[in-house]
């Protein structure tokens, strides 16, 4: 490399950084930087009225899994916490599976429309995607609550004589999350089905493959990047969900997000809240790394 090229590269680097500096400053101040403070707080002692005292303490991290007996200080597995983690993981997996099960046919349907109609169907999926999550949660609440649309119609038609009470249960949270996160599954699935070469299907059928075989052996392997992307996009926000479980789950059916908030409110245990936040962040990062590896692996294989 010549000296002139060196100088040019140095200018490019400098300009790139200078132009990105305002964005980086805002993000460091109000997004990435404070995450480090959370890490520090997870090792401090809870203050009596919230906040923290500056004394090293591992109780925040221990408190994720165990409770301390108030008399003899022995550690016991915290059943309440376990049930919250289990609910979060279970509901997030179920949400991912159901959104894939109904989202794949939907994405396929959109991708196989003629071009003009396809734009319209895609727009119809995009509107709920950009609509306020809170409003969509209210909307599904209108349908499933005790005096909601579902019960009104079912009672009126005589199919049931008592309203189905699912609001403030895990089922309600599950239905709500599947409803609000479905567009996040459909959009990446659509993107990869859209690139799929339909001639491959002809080849499959010419070779006497059944529809099921074509689906399993040709379509699914090729659109796998879209499946992985959609699953991550649904699983990650489900795991950290706060609004939907709060509105549809009531106070009892907490997920991790609500449990974290509790520590900063009535719980007055900021270090435990901080440790829980770091744990959630860690799990999400592992899921994202898995996604990046899957996506890169796909690229290498062609």
């Amino acid at each position: 490399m010549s000296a002139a090229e060196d100088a040019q590269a140095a200018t490019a680097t400098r300009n790139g950084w200078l132009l990105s500096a305002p964005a980086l400053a805002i993000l460091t101040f109000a997004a990435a930087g404070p995450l480090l403070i959370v890490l520090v707080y997870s090792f401090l002692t809870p203050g009596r009225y919230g906040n923290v005292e500056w004394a090293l303490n591992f109780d925040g991290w221990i408190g994720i899994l165990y409770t301390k007996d108030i008399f003899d200080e022995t550690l016991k597995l915290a059943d309440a916490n376990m049930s919250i983690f289990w609910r979060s993981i279970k509901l997030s997996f179920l949400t991912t599976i159901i959104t894939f099960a109904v989202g794949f046919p939907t994405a396929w349907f959109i991708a196989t429309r003629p071009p003009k109609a396809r734009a319209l169907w895609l727009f119809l999926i995009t509107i709920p995607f950009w609509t306020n999550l809170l409003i969509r949660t209210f909307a599904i609440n209108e349908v499933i609550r005790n005096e909601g649309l579902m019960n009104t119609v079912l009672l009126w038609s005589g199919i049931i004589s008592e309203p189905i009470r699912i609001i403030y249960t895990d089922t309600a949270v599950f239905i709500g999350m599947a409803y609000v996160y479905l567009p996040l599954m459909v959009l990446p699935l659509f993107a990869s089905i859209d690139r799929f070469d339909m001639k491959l299907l002809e080849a499959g059928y010419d070779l006497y493959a059944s529809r099921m075989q074509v689906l399993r052996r040709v379509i699914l392997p090729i659109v796998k990047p879209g499946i992985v992307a959609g699953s991550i996009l649904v699983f990650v926000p489900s795991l950290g969900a706060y609004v939907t479980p709060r509105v549809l789950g009531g106070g009892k059916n907490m997920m991790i997000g609500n449990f974290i908030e509790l520590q900063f409110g009535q719980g007055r245990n900021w270090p435990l809240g901080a440790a829980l936040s770091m744990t959630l962040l860690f799990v999400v990062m592992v899921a994202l790394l898995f996604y990046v590896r899957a996506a890169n692996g796909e690229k290498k294989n062609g």
Partner: protein
Amino acid sequence: MAERGFSVARLPGFSTIAIVVFVALYLPIITLVVYSFNAGQSVAVWEGFSLKWYVDAWANDAVKSATLRSLGIALCASIIATAAATMAALGTTRRKAFKGQTFIYVMINQPLMVPEIVTAVALLIFFASIKVATGYQGLGYLIIAHSAFCIPFAYLPIRARLEGMDLSLETAAADLYASSWQTFRRVTLPLLAPGIMAGAMLAFVISLDDVVITEFVKSGGQDTLPTYMLGQMRRALTPEVNAISSVLLALTVLLLTAFFLLTRKND
């Protein structure tokens, strides 16, 4: 459906599922909008058409101030985020890969990866100490927090637009002795404008929609429209919330349609 011969792309049952999905997606939203026009107090029984709840919401001072606050924060945050994102996009596209570029990408997209509740908690802790240290309690905290998570949403369409522009026009301008500022002002910026508009609109919608981070960062009496609605939800459900939701919904659809027209026209 009549048999129209064998179509390779048809998979049995898929169209049916898709139609059911679209109905299931829109039925709740339509229910919400329809009941916002219900005359009765009950959200269950239809008692005739009325604009009562819209009038009530409009007359409610809490709703009015929350609306103004939401719009003000969204306006400030989208301007700040779009300006910062435009500069960052200019700095990271259409040039040779440089040292630290990956780091800049990761930083810019970071708000898309970290769960909102974690960022919310982090800002609660950080801003709580700043509030104690400086005594400042104003809207600045919400504006800077919103600006931060809006940056990736503004950055993505601007970057996409930039990558679609080749450098020949700018090179031509430079050949004609335009200064680099003149080239930027007269050539690059006008060409980039639709991307910047699209980015600003996305940032605006994202800021307007935020619940979780706002809920944790706001001080007393700083409700935005979404946090006000969440607070109402805890008490009794009123059709007033439906009315506010319907207005926000209409606004989103309007902005989205504009966004699509902006990004499509210049393909």
